[in-house]
């Protein structure tokens, strides 16, 4: 089994790339791979808890909770997140908050890196 590290930058709502990242992460974790996810840019808003899933919009929370339960490590860029007005106390539990070097450290140990750029 390998290690897949994903950098996810697109916003939760308004880009199918976020949904793609979540589904790929789940598929990799289901196969027994180690998966790390780094949120930066607009993707960081998706760590806010209590999202309401309206069917015209993507939702992140149900994916993230499921991935965390599978042992996927998820970390959000603290600077990107607080700059968007989301505080740590509002975050989905067990999501890590750190600086950009967290991503590079997970790149160091990865067999594959998929950097999904944002807007």
């Amino acid at each position, binding site marked *: 089994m*390998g290690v*897949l590290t994903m950098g996810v930058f697109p916003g939760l709502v308004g880009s*199918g*790339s976020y949904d*793609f990242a979540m*589904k*790929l992460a*789940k*598929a*990799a974790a*289901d*196969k027994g*791979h180690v998966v790390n996810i780094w949120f930066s840019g607009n993707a960081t808003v998706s760590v806010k808890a209590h999202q309401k899933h309206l069917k015209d919009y993507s939702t992140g929370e149900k994916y993230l909770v499921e991935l965390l339960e599978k042992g996927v490590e998820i970390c959000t860029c603290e600077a990107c997140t607080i700059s968007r007005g989301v505080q740590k106390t509002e975050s989905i539990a067990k999501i890590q908050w750190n600086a950009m070097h967290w991503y590079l450290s997970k790149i160091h140990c990865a*067999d*594959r*890196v*998929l*950097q*999904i*750029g944002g807007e």
Partner: protein
Amino acid sequence: MKLGVLVSDYKICVETIDRMKSDNLGLVLVQNGVYHAVLKEGGKESSLLGKTPRLYVLSEDLQSRGLSAEQVDKRVKVIDYSGLVDVIFNDFDKVAWL
């Protein structure tokens, strides 16, 4: 280097891919990139289909756009997310997203 490029757009990515060497390049068509596997713009197929023999398209992104595997060019292998994970780990040394 066996680079697998995930192509997520229809037009925007083509210029970048065109200038990349074909040796050991593979293309995985996802999101709006799936149109490369099915469209014949002005009767012409996508130039990407001639770039490499290692071509894949994501079934879920075909399905969500009302496209079927039968419409996909025969050179392109249809895979699902589980298959994509295998392709990422087994068919390429590194992957990139465009």
